[in-house]
């Protein structure tokens, strides 16, 4: 009888531990696949933001090279003094998968991010910042001399 209880206990603990591991994996893996699907920029953009109003704002500062020699590595710096920005989206207009990144951060971080993106050809790099319920947009035109092979 004692042995049976012991086995039941072992079973429960093991099952619990497995469930925890699976859940932990799941939380890291909730990647929004449809945001990153292949397609036209306008369609993907529409799919993500629908008909929400998006204001242009130079308060979202973008630093990108005017001319990128190598489209495989294009540095981007995004910064802003605006408060309450929780999320940044980086779009490359002409890439086969136009959304490059979706970054969410909390108030312990300043609104400052640098990254490196691929660009297939000369086009706009569009950044959308989410400030509460509001969406702000800024963009830069980057001339690409040599497209990052298989870019996007």
């Amino acid at each position, binding site marked *: 009888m004692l042995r049976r209880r012991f086995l039941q206990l072992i079973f429960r603990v093991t099952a619990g531990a497995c469930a925890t591991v699976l859940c932990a*994996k799941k939380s*890291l*893996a*909730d*990647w*929004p696949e449809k*945001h*990153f699907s292949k397609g036209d920029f306008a369609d993907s953009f529409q799919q993500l933001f629908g008909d929400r109003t998006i204001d242009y704002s130079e308060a979202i500062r973008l630093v990108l090279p005017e001319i990128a020699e190598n489209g*495989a*590595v*294009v540095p981007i*710096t995004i910064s802003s003094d605006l408060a309450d920005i929780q999320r940044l989206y980086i779009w*490359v207009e002409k*890439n*086969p*998968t*136009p*959304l*490059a*990144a*979706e*970054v*969410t*951060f*909390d*108030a*312990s*971080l*300043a609104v*400052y*991010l*640098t*990254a*490196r*993106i*691929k660009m297939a050809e000369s086009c706009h790099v569009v950044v959308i910042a989410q400030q509460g319920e509001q969406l702000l947009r800024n963009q830069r035109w980057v001339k690409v001399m040599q497209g*990052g*092979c*298989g*870019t*996007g």
Partner: protein
Amino acid sequence: MGSIKIRSRQLDDYTEIKLLITHPMENGRNRDPISGALIPAHFIRDLVVELNGKIILTADLGGSMSMNPFFTFRLKRSETGDRLHVRWLDNLELSDSAEYVFE
């Protein structure tokens, strides 16, 4: 796997953190130069940064990020002994993590 390098430096108002991850970030559209076959997609999808066990940044990434992703971000403040934990998961379910303690 040791794919993550973390560095920090103290600026006047911020602690700047640099993150370099070794990863091919293949988007599935490149061809092998010799065989001509398509190289299967292999890229980091999720990146999570925690400070003392609390998530402070999550990034969902696509194949448009460059090979060996490199990020900089700025913490408003950090104290000696604060722990930064970084982990990533890619589309082939491979993952890695690293921890960094502020001095």
